[in-house]
Each structure stands twice: as C-alpha cells, then as structure tokens.
C-alpha cells in the first residue's frame, strides 16, 4: 500500500482483516493529508472559530463576557495536537493489525515491486499479490503563480501558520476556501473570497450558494464571484491580485482553486498505467489498466473526498482478497463543508434533477421554523429535498445549517436502501431535534409539512 492517507490506511487495515500481509509506504506521517493537514486539523480550527462566535453572541443569551481573548496561535497549536493524536491512532491501528510501515517515498519499478527511498537508503518491497496506490493529491495553483507558503499560501500553509494575517484574499470558494474564510473571519481577519464561477460552493445546489453568500457576507466576508484572476504579485499590503473584476490587495493570498492528483514519480508512466484527465483510470474494483496494480482515493479521480477514498480502499482490499465487493456508489457520496452554517448534500442538485425533463417535487423547510434550532439560536439555513414526482425517489438533499453534516446521513441511508419520501415520512423523528427539519422538508415534498 503506497500512501497511508484515509484511503490507504483503511485499505491496509481491511486487507489485514482479510488475512493478507500488508506493507505500507508513507513519505509523511500516517493518515495523509486528511489527518495531518486537511480534514481533521481544519475541523479543530473551525471548532475554535465556533467557540469564538459563541462568546461573541453570548450577550444574546444574557451572558456577559469581559476581556475575551482569542489566541490564534493557540488555536493552531490545538489543531496540531488533534492531528498528532489522530496520526498516532493510525500507527496504533497498524500495530494492532500487524501492518508494517516503511517510511519513505514509494515508486513502482515493476508491476509488483516498490522501491522505498527513505532516510537510510532504498528498501525494495515485493508484493505477492497486488500493489495499491493511494498517493493522494496536492493543492493546485493558478498558472504563473507560485505557492511560497509565505505570501501565497495553500491549505498546507494555512493549517500550519500560527500567525494570522491582518487581511487575506482567498482565491476559490469551494469547501477549502469557504472553511478558511470562516476560520480567519472569526479571528478578525479581513477576508475577501474570490470565485471564478458565478457562485460560491459551485457544486452545491444554487439555493445553498445564495443563502450561504448572504450568511458569510453578513459576517463581513467580502465575496466576489465570476471574477478571473489575471495576476498575483507582491505589493501593497503584501500581495496584489489583479482580476477582471478589480484589484485586490491583502497581506496574504490563499490558493484554494482545487487539488491535482499526485502521480509523478510513482512509476506509472513506465508501466503504462492508463490515465484519464490527470487521474489514474480504474475499474469498478479499483484496478488500474495494469493487472495487480490498484489505485484509490484522490489519485483515482473525483470526488476528492476522504470518505470516498475510504470506501474505495475497502473495495480494493476485498477485491484483492478474492471477495466480490460491491462497487462504490459514486452517486451516493455525501458532500460536506464545515463552515458556519454547515453545508451538506447528497445526490442531485435541483438543476441536475431537472435535466432531461424529469418531473421533480421539491420540499423545503427553514430552520427558523424548527424548535430545536430556535432554542439553540441557530436558525440559519434550511433542508431541501428533491424527489421524483412519480415514484417519490429521493433524488437529492441539500442542507444548510447547524449540524447539517451530521443530518445528511439519514438521507444517505435512505438512498442506499432505496427508500422513498414515504419511508422518511413514516419514520418518527425525535422532538425536538434539528432532524425534524429533514422530516418536515420531506413532508413538504408531498405538500404536507406541518410546522410551516
């Protein structure tokens, strides 16, 4: 197993469970970008941001806070501590499952031989059965713009830097851009969010983008959409960004324009592994064009999400062990963004659902009408359910609001079981919960919402 990110370590453990002998290769720390530099540490930072926010609005709960100090460096340190703990957790799981870790950079020299270049020279590993590649991805930049992690930083720098800038321009308003906008803004940084497409979180449902834009703008984040960046250069307060929508300057620029597969130096070209638009092409069991070589996670294509990588890791391990795994259902991968309010979705957007002339029925329910949300003081957002008009099939669900990322799984399970709106409707939802909004949105599909 080359790479021990979320796809790799899960795949390694599953393979070990199935009785295979597993060696893993890692050039950073076990857990990959997700545990060390991505998902997990940013969630720690976002939790800090949320606590700051709670203190700031404590007054509305009748709680007076004096002399509140939010130390950004401490937030980053805490975040590092969380990442360390998770990485150690992976090392523990490896020991528990008798998985050997070879630190170093792995590359294939033949279809079953991996050379590991470590600190103490090269170790050669020979796989008896198969090699799984999970080398992940790295941040992309714009043409002609170098990421120096000082003036122009990527998420890698942002998650490490203990010093926060006074002002920052974030280029790209996908999940990464929006989450860092949230963190920085909560710590008082002047944030400008630039997006080339017409709306922020462009893969989400349009209504989510619209309402999230409103929420973030209200918090003082400057949002410019539909702007193309033409140049990023030192100057002004630090960096000057030229766009077709005006000139921006800030102390730093965060590049959040997406990620590209890490496939260089892995030895793919020499073995003739087929690529497809920058990613490794794989079969439904995650096997590449070369028999015995598997690829999972970000390098194997979109969506570049840890949970999709984990699911692929399990499929690859089971296929190698001679099981007959159920292929990953790419149409049923939840998408989550952990800004405030959170964004979570699964399935099709309204626009996608209507493509091809399908008749859909849509139900929407705002958290302002949900008792628990009002009690929590978290009334931003809504649940939107898109169903097939004829069969009641749940085509897509979009949630904007507190704990949206936890609530989405009701619909993920429902869709896996091929439940329709009827089954959700007949499921008693505990009162009072935010999840009642999911029930109400489903009832709204049928024109039967009660609390609105």
């Amino acid at each position, binding site marked *: 197993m080359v790479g021990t990110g979320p796809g790799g370590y899960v795949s390694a453990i599953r393979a070990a469970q199935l009785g295979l002998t597993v060696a893993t290769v890692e050039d950073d720390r076990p857990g990959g970008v997700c545990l060390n530099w991505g998902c997990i540490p940013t969630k720690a930072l976002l939790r800090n941001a949320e606590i700051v926010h709670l203190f700031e609005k404590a007054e509305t709960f009748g709680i007076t806070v004096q002399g509140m100090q939010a130390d950004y460096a401490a937030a980053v340190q805490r975040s590092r501590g969380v990442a360390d703990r998770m990485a150690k957790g992976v090392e523990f799981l490896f020991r528990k499952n008798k998985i050997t870790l070879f630190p170093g950079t792995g590359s294939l020299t033949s279809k079953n031989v991996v050379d590991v270049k470590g600190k103490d020279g090269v170790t050669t590993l020979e796989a008896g059965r198969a090699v799984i590649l999970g080398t992940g991805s790295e941040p992309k930049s714009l043409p002609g713009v170098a990421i120096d992690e000082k003036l122009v930083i990527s998420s890698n720098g942002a998650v490490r830097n203990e010093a926060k800038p006074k002002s920052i321009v974030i280029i790209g308003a996908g999940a990464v851009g929006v989450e860092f906008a949230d963190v920085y803004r909560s710590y008082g940084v002047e944030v400008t969010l630039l997006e080339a497409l017409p709306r922020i979180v462009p893969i989400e449902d349009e209504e989510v983008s619209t309402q999230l834009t409103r929420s973030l703008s209200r918090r003082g984040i400057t949002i410019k959409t539909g702007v193309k960046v033409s140049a990023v250069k030192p100057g002004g307060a630090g960096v000057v960004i030229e766009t077709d929508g005006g000139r921006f300057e800030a102390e730093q620029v965060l590049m959040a324009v997406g990620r590209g597969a890490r496939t260089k130096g892995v030895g793919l070209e020499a073995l003739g592994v087929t690529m497809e638009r920058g990613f490794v092409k794989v079969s439904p069991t995650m096997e590449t064009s070369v028999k015995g070589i598997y690829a999972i996670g970000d390098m194997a294509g979109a969506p570049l999400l840890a949970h999709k990588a984990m699911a692929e890791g399990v499929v690859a391990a089971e296929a190698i062990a001679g099981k007959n795994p159920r292929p990953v259902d790419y149409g049923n991968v939840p998408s989550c963004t952990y800004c405030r309010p959170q964004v979570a979705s699964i399935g099709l957007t309204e626009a996608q659902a209507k493509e091809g002339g399908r*008749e859909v*029925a849509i139900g929407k329910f705002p958290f302002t009408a949900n008792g628990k949300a009002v009690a929590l003081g978290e009334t931003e957002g809504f649940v939107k359910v898109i*169903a097939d*008009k*004829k*069969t*009641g*099939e749940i085509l897509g669900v979009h949630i904007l609001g507190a704990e949206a990322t936890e609530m989405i799984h009701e619909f993920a399970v429902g869709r896996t*079981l*091929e*439940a*329709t*709106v*009827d*089954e959700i*409707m*007949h499921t008693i939802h505990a009162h009072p919960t935010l999840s009642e909004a999911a029930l109400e949105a489903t009832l709204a599909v*049928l*024109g039967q919402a009660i609390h609105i």
Partner: protein
Amino acid sequence: MAVTKVVMPKLSEQMESGKIIKWLKKEGDRIQSGDILAEVETDKADVEMEAFGGGVLRKILVPAGNKVTVGSLIGVIADESEDINSVVAQAGGGAPAAAAQGAAAPSAAKPAMADRPAAVPPQPKSEDLTARKPVPSKGPEAPASPRVAEVVAQQPAASMAPAQPSADGGRVKASPLARKIAAQSGVDLKLIHGSGPGGRIVRRDVEAAQSSPPAAAAAAPALRPVAQPSVSGPEFEDVPLTPMRSAIAKRMPLSKAPVPHFYVTSEVAMDRAWALREELNALEGQPKISVNDFIIRACALTLLHHPGVNASFQGESIRVFHRVHMGIAVALEEGLITPVLRDAHAKSLAQIAVDARDLAERARQRKLRTQELSGATFSISNLGMFDVRDFSAIINPPEGAIVAVGAVRKVPVVTEDGLGVGRRMALTISCDHRVMDGAMGARYLQDVKKLLEEPLRLLV
C-alpha cells in the same frame, strides 16, 4: 378507509397510453380484488385489466373508447360510505376532458405519490396482486399454483433461488422504490430475482424486468399470403403499421443486432411420440394433446438439467433461472404474440395441453392478462402447421435461447431391415452466444431429442 384508484396500467415497456375497449363492470358493481374490470388495448395486445382492491366501483372516469396515458386515473373503487370526491376531483375536474388530452392528464392531476398515502392503504399494489394470484374463473392454472410451489420446493436447485418466495404469501424482499416502480409499471415482483443484498429486489431489477419484452419471438417467415400479380391498378400501397407490427419492428432488431445468435439443428424421430399421442388422445375424458405440448414438456424438463440454457445475459452476470416459464409463440393475423406458460417444468402433459390451449385461444381473442405477457425464461416457436421443414427463430431478449419447431414429416428412413417410412421433425435452437456455447446448445438439444424419442419419459 379503502379507496383504490384505478389507473391505466403500464402493460408493456413501450406502452405510453392505452384505450379502454370495454368496461366489464359498471358503476355500482361490487368488486373483488382480482376481478376483471375492463379490456384495454395496448400497442401489443388487448389485455384484461384486473382490480387491485375491493369495494364498489364507484366511478368510471374514462368511458369506453377513450385513450388515456399510462397512470391516468380511470376509475375509483371504494366502500359505499367512502367520500371519493377528493379523489375524483384530482382527475382534473372533467375526466373525459383530461382523458382526451392524453399527455396532459397526469400533469393536470396532482403527483400520484402526493395523495397516495391518503388515498390508498400503504400496501404495495403488486403484492396485493400476487398474494391473491390470478383467479380467473375458468383458468385451470390458478388452483395448480400452490402445488407448483411444492414441486419447486422439493427440488434442491430451487432452494438456491434467491428471494423466491413461497406461493403461500411469503414476503417478497424488495426496496420501497422497487415496489413503487413495479406497482406503477405492472411488473410482478414475485417473478423477479433480486440482485441486492440477500436477494433483495432493487430498482435496477425492476427496470430490467420492465425492459424485457412482453411478447414477440420467432422470426416468422412471411405469414401473409402472396398477393396475386395483377396488371392493372396501382403499383403498390403503403399499409400503415398496426401497433403490434410496429412493436415487433422495434423489438426484433434489438434482439438480432446486439445478441450474437448461433443455431443448432437436430432431427428427432417422432414415431413413438406420434403413436403415444394418438393413444393418449383416444382416451376418454382426456384433454387433446398436440405435438407442441410434447415439445413444451420435453423442452421444459430438459431445461431443469441444463440450467445454463435457461439463462439470461445480464451485462455483468448471467442469470440462471431455476424455474421454467415457457414463452409460446402464437401467430396472429396481424403478427405474433408470445404468451407465457408459467412453471412449465412442473406441469403434466395434460396440464400443459390445457394451459397452452387456453393461452393460445385467449391470445387470438386478445384477452391475455398482463402477467401472461412477460417473464418467459425460454421460448418455443412452432411453424409446423405451415409444413415448414425447419427454420431459425430470433431470440426474445432477455431470454437466452428459443427453439424453432418444424413440421413432423413422413420421410424415408434407413432401418435395420432396409428402407422404411418414419416421422421426423427438425428442432433448431437459437442461442445467445454471450450466455452459452455451441456444445451447450447441442447437448441440450440432444437431451430434448432423447425425451421425445422415448416419450414415455414425458409421462412420468
């Protein structure tokens, strides 16, 4: 509580609308689930439409002679005391108006699912349909079905069939979405094998069943009489396609082009079968048995020993059927239709004779029920009555094979003593090469031949 909405059923894959030929019940009639409500004309056939719920036929919304789109509300069954105004109102006020508009009808009504919970008890229609099994007053098949189930259960192979419920009302494992699509499209879940976890029927299974053709099989060499050559009059005329001809025209290239056919022909000595048939038909009180009945029985029994031939190509897998549902091609004036003789492997020769005749007769009268038009696992096409020596038929996807039967001919045969006269018949099997190979088809045919040449085996 119980209000059953009667909607235009989707009786075949291509069906978009149906015409009500005749209502067999009138408003105020008491209805039991399974009663025949009306006759409906589809693109393929005239089909009897069953009631899916009991009560009183309170309202007929679409009078006979009108055509409506699939899914349109055409009537309401409910108890006398039930208020059906809201249901009727959904038909868009004036029902005939909505009906006349055809495509506009469903969109004018509220989405079917929106009011379904209120209107219909949440029992899946298809379950209701099958739980009661078709109970045609004259149909000899119905009383036989529990017995069929027993026979099937005794066979070890049958126990491997996933999700094959017992006929005594065993639960069909199916996802809610699969149930809805099945109910809307008239697919019988009991006839589908589930591909989900533990044999659960999921959406793709129902969709696959929907796309399996309701009928049509043999590559019937032109059945139309040759026109008299005439010297005067127009040189040609363009005869518009009948709905059935148009369906056949659409279906057949879908088989012949993508399905790699191969053909194996074998000659069967029919002397003993012929003699046995005459002996059987001379018996008092026995149904008349045709040569085709012998062939159906022989083909069905042999399929149990050659499951690879009773199989269907499914893209990523081959579905091997453990029961034999025999499609029997029936030539009609305007084309052909292939009614399905269910569980043919579990039926005696006499039972086959009765059932096959009933199916063929009702096919000619266009009186087949939906479930008799789909679900075949294998088909037989017989052109013997046209004095055809042999021919090859087009497979009816998703079935994996079809047997084409020629006439039983008296021919000179070489015997031990010299030259004699024997009765010979040609069988040609067309096989889907994606499912099986030549030798498989040949071995199957060899065993069919053996059964027909030792026909007493067909009686035990």
